[in-house]
């Protein structure tokens, strides 16, 4: 099995350590991983802004880079959801279908494909899990608080395998952080207010770290934390799962 490592554009540029952790974690678990260097972006920033019609080149490029792999794995629920929902090709619809169905977010790949039930990881801190909306309501990584349905959580299951890690309960376990792609600048006031309130939920409940399956949420929350010189830190879940003594 060979996995194509899909590192979203902003992760590549600003959060290389999360990408490295993803690569190392998969390798530790015995997976052969290849990073196709000519990848750029899934096209979500355009599509969510109403410009899905401009994403053809991104789609074609994505297919060119990733068609050959057994699985495609990314440390970003949002980008994976975009591929799942919106990757299309007029020239090769069957290939697009295949790529959509074999693209996985890291946590769901570890849970549903690798079926891992233990991890050699150590992270002796209090951690709050910020549910990315696209991971939660798009990829169903956990049960959604709105539904009358049985609870489960793939990220919590993994985090519970980490030695020393203490998960803190939040008052609003799945409220949105307010990033929302271009929303974060187009609706700056609302976006920041939402982010401040997410941060406060973690602070109030004694977290040292906010983690998430999406760095876009974390980039936004980290920007707010740093502006306010908070001691609370934002860290992608791959970095926690890849932490050792």
């Amino acid at each position, binding site marked *: 099995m060979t996995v194509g490592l899909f590192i979203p*554009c902003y*992760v590549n540029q600003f959060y290389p350590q999360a990408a490295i952790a993803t690569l190392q974690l998969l390798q530790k678990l015995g997976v052969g991983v290849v*990073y196709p260097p000519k990848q*750029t972006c899934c096209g979500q*920033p*355009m599509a969510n802004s109403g410009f899905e019609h401009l994403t053809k080149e991104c789609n074609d490029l994505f297919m060119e880079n990733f068609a050959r792999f057994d699985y495609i794995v990314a440390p970003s629920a949002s980008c994976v959801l975009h591929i799942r929902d919106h990757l299309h090709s007029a020239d090769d619809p069957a290939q697009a279908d295949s790529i959509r169905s074999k693209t996985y977010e890291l946590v769901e790949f570890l849970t549903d494909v690798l079926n891992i039930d233990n991890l050699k990881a150590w992270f002796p801190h209090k951690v709050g899990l910020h549910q990315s*909306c696209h991971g939660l309501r798009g990829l169903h990584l956990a049960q959604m608080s709105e539904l009358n349905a049985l609870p489960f959580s793939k990220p919590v299951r993994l985090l519970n395998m980490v030695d020393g890690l203490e998960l803190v309960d939040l008052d609003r376990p799945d409220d949105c952080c307010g990033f929302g792609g271009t929303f974060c*600048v187009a609706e700056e006031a609302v976006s920041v207010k*939402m982010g401040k309130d997410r941060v406060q939920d973690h602070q109030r409940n004694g977290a040292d770290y906010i983690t998430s399956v999406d760095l876009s949420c974390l980039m936004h929350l980290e920007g707010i934390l740093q502006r306010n010189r908070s001691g609370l830190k934002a860290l992608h879940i791959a970095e926690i799962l890849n932490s050792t003594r």
Partner: protein
Amino acid sequence: MEKALKDHAALAEEFIKDEERVDWHDGALWWIRQKRDIAAKNIPEWEALREAASQIKSNVLSNLHDYLLEFEANAQKNGITVHWAADAEEHNAIVYSILKAKDINQLVKSKSMLTEECHLNEYLIERGVDVINSDLGEYIQQLDNEPPSHIVLPCIHKRKEEIGAIFHEHLGTEKGVSDPTTLTRFARRHLRNVFVTRRAALTGVNFAVAETGEYVVCTNEGNADMGAHLSEVQISSMGIEKIIPKKKHLGVFLRLLARSATGQPITIYSSHFKKPRQGQEMHLILVDYGRSRQLGRPDFRDSLKCIRCGACMNTCPVYRKSGGLSYHNTISGPIGAILAPNLDMRKHADLPFASTLCGSCSNVCPVKINIHEQLYKWRQVIVQEGYAANTKVMGIKAMAWTLSSPASYARIGKAGRWVLNNIPFAVNNKFNPWYKQREMPDGSKGSFGEWYAKNGRNEEEGKQPETTQTPDVPLTDKHHER
């Protein structure tokens, strides 16, 4: 109306300046969302009820023509005069003509978002007809000359002290009195007199039953009944999508409506109106006002399933932080943002973008409207129809071009990081909305692509680094939970 010149982002920014109010507004709505969750989770068949309601509404939308005619025939048999209005103007003219024929110049009106959409009050007042809203929240909004900010909780954005001041100014209550019970009692005394003296009453309609020609109006205050029972002329206005096929379907919708709206098992009053009392006239106005156009849009027709519970507003983090008036449309929040562009795409082009697409709205919706997916689709339509701001078009085109080529992306990514590191003031300034209240991400570490070119290749397929442990997990191809 002049407020419509500002878009959602600008109006929201104004609302957010009073952060204490936002926190309180957000908390009040979240509390209602929690009450809704408890109510929904107390019914084991909740999700099945939602599905049933959604399917009944699908059937209604696919057979709307037939159900409307069936309803009209049965309502007429019951002695109700049925009118058809294509738009707001026709609706308002019908109401006025009914009143004029009876020489009536005073109307009491219970909550009806449709008449708010039609701006009925302004229309009648211009023609010398006095209108009083009898729903307490709507009454307060009317006194303050503001539209409702929430379809179920019209003045949820107002503090009790502000309401006390409005009562003092308009109704002569003692200055400084803000106790809700005292104010409510005062309003009740005032409204009792209105109910007794008004000859005509107008109500909205929650559900109209095709099979029987009756309709149901849900209130918590009993104000619709109070007006209707004392009136000589009863008028009810309904959007054509409010039809349900059979009386038994009420059992599905009434169980969902109040639980979704406020967490109550049922509204205090679910009043069935079927035929006029002796000597009373009953009129029912079936209003299209854009609904058949929306029905013709395959991606958006399901928005017509809405039963106006307001659950999507209560759960929406954008709504909670920005207030209903920032949506500059009678129906605010997520559902308003998918209904409004159908009425006026240019005026409401901003609304589908006033969302993070978090999807919570779709999950609480009792008729399972895919609200957040429709928001995404409206964005595509609005851009294609040319209603996106020019600056945005340029920016996105540049982004699409950059990301379409690996070489330009690598170059620009590098340039972006170089700018962040070396001349941060180029981006850390007031023209960068990100930087206003957030630090920029750290661009000093180099990209993963660069790291991988140096360190990664030796870690590729088959060549496992020494630190790697052998996995004790089977590598299977299971696809769960898809």
